[in-house]
């Protein structure tokens, strides 16, 4: 990457305060995350619950829960996010990044009108006049496909459906004109039929404006459709990072292969769904070696003892001791 990356995470580790343990005991939830995002690029973060994907974007916006500790560095356009003072942080949150949350109904104040929600940041952070701000809001609402936008401004959140509220959320992010969008499972809380529409709008508008995006989801296929690169996370670590187009052919980590293999296919006839045995673990539950060791079909003693590093393999990065051997087995099989 020759130009300054829009977003760069180096060795990002997050520990949460442990309630039950003694004071000072900390639970790691993110363990050495390294990522770089070019301006205008879309990166997918895929993982199950406990993988740390949400925590990653919270670290990027510095909205970690109370008592959390952050190690490592996060740089936005070269600036160290962790070192920002209050004013710089507010400017960064206002104009640098925009976040789309998972459940719009919970994330929009139910006692205030949609209009107030949309123009709040413009009016307070940038001193835009109310009428001007409302005019801009109407424009953006139209772009996200909401009809009769002027009337919507007067309505309350409980009068809108989930899909419409998520579009409102997207609109509010676009209004702020950020350079990076962080979308944390934006369609998980919506009906399946609405998902495609909402993701489509988000994708189109992002490309039109040339915005960077980190797209979090547990749905691998969704990430592959929307993003240029996809990072698969497990137990607070990135286990595979690859170009989206190549993931199907060149997926190498056993976990990624498990995810790909467990999707039911309409073309095949199968007796049982292929599932990965065991349950997903969080960073603080994993041992000294590879976090996936207990669930991996290819596990060897070295896997439990030594932590694998993220290393290049076949055009992407993979965190696995035995990746070369496994790939060979697949070819032979």
């Amino acid at each position, binding site marked *: 990457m020759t130009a300054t990356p829009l977003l760069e995470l180096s060795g990002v580790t997050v520990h949460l305060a442990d309630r039950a343990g003694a004071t000072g005991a900390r639970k790691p939830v993110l363990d050495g995350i390294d990522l770089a995002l070019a301006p205008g690029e879309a990166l997918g973060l895929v993982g199950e619950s406990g993988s740390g994907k949400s925590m990653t974007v919270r670290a990027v916006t*510095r909205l970690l829960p109370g008592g959390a500790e952050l190690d490592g560095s996060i740089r936005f356009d070269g600036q160290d996010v962790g070192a920002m003072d209050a004013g710089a942080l507010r400017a960064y949150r206002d104009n640098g990044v925009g976040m789309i949350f998972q459940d719009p109904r919970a994330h929009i104040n139910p006692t205030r009108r949609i209009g107030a929600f949309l123009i709040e940041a413009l009016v307070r952070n940038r001193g835009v006049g109310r009428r001007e701000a409302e005019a801009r809001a109407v424009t953006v609402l139209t772009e996200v496909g909401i009809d009769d936008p002027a009337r919507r401004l007067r309505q309350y959140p409980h009068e809108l459906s989930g899909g419409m509220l998520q579009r409102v959320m997207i609109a509010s992010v676009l209004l702020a004109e950020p350079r990076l969008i962080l979308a944390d499972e934006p369609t998980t809380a919506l009906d399946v039929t609405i998902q495609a529409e909402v993701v489509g709008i988000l994708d189109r508008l992002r490309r039109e404006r040339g915005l960077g995006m980190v797209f979090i989801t547990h749905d691998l296929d969704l990430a592959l459709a929307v993003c240029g690169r996809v990072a698969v996370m497990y137990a607070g670590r990135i286990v595979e990072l690859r170009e989206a187009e190549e993931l199907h052919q060149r997926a190498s980590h056993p976990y990624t292969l498990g995810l790909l293999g467990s999707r039911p296919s309409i073309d095949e006839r199968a007796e049982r769904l292929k599932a990965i045995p065991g349950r997903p673990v969080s960073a603080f539950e994993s041992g000294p070696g590879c976090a996936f060791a207990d669930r991996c079909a290819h596990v060897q003693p070295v896997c439990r003892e030594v932590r694998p590093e993220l290393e290049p393999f076949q055009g992407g990065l993979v965190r696995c001791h035995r990746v070369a051997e496994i790939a060979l087995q697949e070819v032979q099989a």
Partner: protein
Amino acid sequence: MKPLQLLRRARAALGPSGTCAAVFMIVVLVAAVAAPLLAPYNPNAEALLDSFAPPSASHLLGADGIGRDILSRLMFGARTSLLGPALVVSIALLVGIPMALAACWYGGFVDSVIARVFDIVYAMPGLLLAVLAVSLFGPGLVPAVAALSIAYIPFLARIVLAAARQQRVSPYVDALSVQGFGAVRITVRHILRNIAPVVLGQAAIAFGYALLDLAALSYLGLAVQAPTADWGVMVSDETALQQGYWLPILAPGVLIVLCVLSLTVIGARISGERPQPYLLRRARKSAVAAPALTGAAS
């Protein structure tokens, strides 16, 4: 169940604060019941030489303006101060529970009428009803207790009603109905038994508030009256107040506060909540570390 096992279970259910509170209340109760045997003096025995005597070996808590031993008056006072609320709560439960259960079981019209009645009675402050009663029937414990009992019926009955309604819609009630058990039997043997902890807990809290109300009425001279030893009456000691002696007033006051505090804690533990004032009836969400807005992280 063996008594030791029962005690252990009670201790576990009450928790450390609840157990302390329960022990305290038992001590007070014993003092009240055994006052004639345990109290060092007759509560009405005057000894002007000892007027406002400070605490000493002969008067552990000192004496009041006319030389009556404060400790003895507190012990005898416990009798009236505890008896009144006990009557209030018992009557309120005896009347309120059947009404609430009937409203719950029959639903519909019966329910709305009874709920309306509760609303009306609830609209009048208990103290005021007691004042009305006293103005009609003259001062005394009987009119005060009668009026307060009526005033407390809605407070307890509404809780019974809410809890019973929850039970009513549970599948087991339908199952019992289908098996042919009658309304009374289901209500009493099953529903009532299941809501007993909540009801008893609230009854304990109501006991505390009734104690406060009756003490206030006695303070005003409308319920128990001087010279009878009663905590409320003792707090109203004018002479002590004007001459600047605070122990004759503080002692009964502190006792009242401690009793109500204990009862509130016990009541909350029995009904299964963390101790909190009765006004607070919100669903509790599990506490999560409050995010960036508090403390230093931003």
